[in-house]
């Protein structure tokens, strides 16, 4: 299938439509950043994703195949970065699916369905004189990289605050520019939580908009912090997904207006739609 050069965006420019077929792409490179692997793959003709969108990935070989073991379903991954005809993903090995993906070598085949979901809003009206604070935790830094690229390209003021477990994980900070770091064990940057850095930033100047992605407790802390100061925030959430395109109703998260399918109405949600970002069954 040809994805076509003309990408169509919907949902106020936050969604690039995906071709309805999964496409088999080729891995170009795998690079290690401490605890993380970055997969770069060729995606000729693939439509350019919006920051915060994701793709469902499965290896072409040994992914259950016809009669498979786990992993059986594809796995959701934020787009880390996109260049014309190329996509990058960031992985942390936490289970059978990520372990298998992290084994891929250049030349191997990868099934990609995407881009999916609604990404971050970077409309001028949204930024309106505010600086963008990118708050990432662990593997949640992935969608912030492509977001930073876009914001920098449009000359917006951006600050990246990233939190990691330890020094091995903090190596992932190299994927963003000029990131300020916090580590739980103090082995790199501030010893403590990334929300400490966010608090200090907001104490200094509240004219900000927060874009955050990370584990549920971090997102919940960001949500509460921003809500307390009336700072707008957009949170990229996670939940277990079977399909990624609204078919299974499996990925719902509770919002103030009821359950929403995170793959369809998210993964980025305005923080004020949420009572809490601590959603059951998400994160590790």
């Amino acid at each position, binding site marked *: 299938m040809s994805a076509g050069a003309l990408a169509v965006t*919907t949902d106020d420019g936050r969604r690039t439509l995906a071709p309805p*077929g999964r496409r088999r792409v080729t891995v170009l490179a795998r690079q290690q950043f401490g605890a993380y692997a970055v997969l770069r793959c060729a995606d000729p003709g693939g439509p350019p994703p919006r920051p915060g969108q994701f793709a469902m990935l499965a290896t072409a070989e040994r992914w259950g195949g*016809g009669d498979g073991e*786990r992993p059986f379903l594809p796995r959701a991954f934020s787009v880390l970065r996109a260049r014309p005809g190329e996509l990058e993903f960031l992985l942390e090995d936490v289970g059978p699916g990520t372990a298998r993906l992290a084994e891929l070598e250049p030349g191997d085949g990868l099934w990609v369905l995407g881009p*999916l979901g609604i990404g971050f809003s970077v409309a001028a009206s949204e930024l309106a004189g505010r600086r963008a604070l990118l708050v990432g935790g662990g593997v949640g830094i992935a969608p912030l990289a492509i977001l930073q690229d876009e914001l920098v390209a449009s000359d917006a003021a951006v600050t990246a605050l990233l939190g990691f477990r330890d020094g091995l994980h903090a190596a992932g900070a190299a994927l963003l520019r000029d990131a300020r770091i916090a580590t739980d064990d103090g082995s790199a940057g501030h010893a403590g939580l990334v929300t400490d850095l966010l608090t200090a930033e907001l104490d200094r100047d509240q004219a900000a908009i927060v874009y955050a992605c990370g584990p549920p407790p971090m997102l919940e802390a960001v949500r509460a912090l921003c809500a307390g100061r009336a700072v707008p925030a957009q949170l990229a959430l996670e939940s277990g997904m*079977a399909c990624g395109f609204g*078919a299974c*109703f499996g990925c719902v998260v*509770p919002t103030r207006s009821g359950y929403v399918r995170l793959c369809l109405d998210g993964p980025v949600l305005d923080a004020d739609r949420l009572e809490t970002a601590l959603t059951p069954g998400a994160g590790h």
Partner: protein
Amino acid sequence: MTSAAASGSATAALPTRFCGIELAHPIVNGSGTFDAIAAQRAFGPALVEQFPFAAFVSKTVTLAPREGNPPPRLWELPAGLINSIGLPNKGLAGYLTHDLPELAALPVPLIVNVMGFTRDEVAELVSAFAERDEVAALELNVSCPNVETGLIMGADPAETALLVERVRPLTDKPLIVKLTPNATDPGAVAVAAEAAGADALSLINTIRGMALDPRTHEPWLGGTTGGVSGATVRAVALAQVYDVAGRVSIPLVAMGGVQRGRDADDLLRAGATLVAVGTESFRDPLAGARVADELTRIRRPDARPGARARG
């Protein structure tokens, strides 16, 4: 591995008649495993141009709106999935207003799946759709308790017969009864449904299953237990389809673990007229078209030149 997208050409190669409805091929979707409206939000008009199924079966509609079960709703198995979705839907009124117009615009016939907690509820749902020209057929999801009798409607032949007798006079549209596999004798239920006037049967729905959270050792799913689907139920589905096919003469829509053309071929050989793809669509949104394409190559190897030499 076959190519990702099904080519349109092959999918017209196995025309099928089901309860008087002409279909381009025998592959449809399982209710609740494909949301054609959501998929258009994700894929745009291309989804309609490459629509993977020969008919579209919509997710179960109930009289009142339902939020569904609390998350988590999914648990992956070696070759399958447990879901505890809990039938979220907008309710009859919401469906008629919001969903029906969009689904009627699909390029294939529409089958509406309904469920009620009493016979009167089911009757109300059937009556509401009886007058809608957009609806080609109705599927009754009977995998739920009758709140009046406490019995799972579709597990008990007598309950099923009473239900079908009640709603049969309300519509001329084909009535498909979707059997539950969680029954002592699905064949007996099938016989009862046929005698009571069902035009067709579909099977299997999901099999009750469960998983514990590896950390807390409490039930993982928000709904405690859920339904198992996917490759792991294929052998059970085949046995039930084979058994039911031997006991009724109305057509069957068979499903359960279909991933490839040869899985569909097995179910057709076991006696089905249509085959539905469910969980496999989660892994590949165009799985329906791919299965139809593979099936065409199995059934009509000469339909397309060179088809055998890998299309």
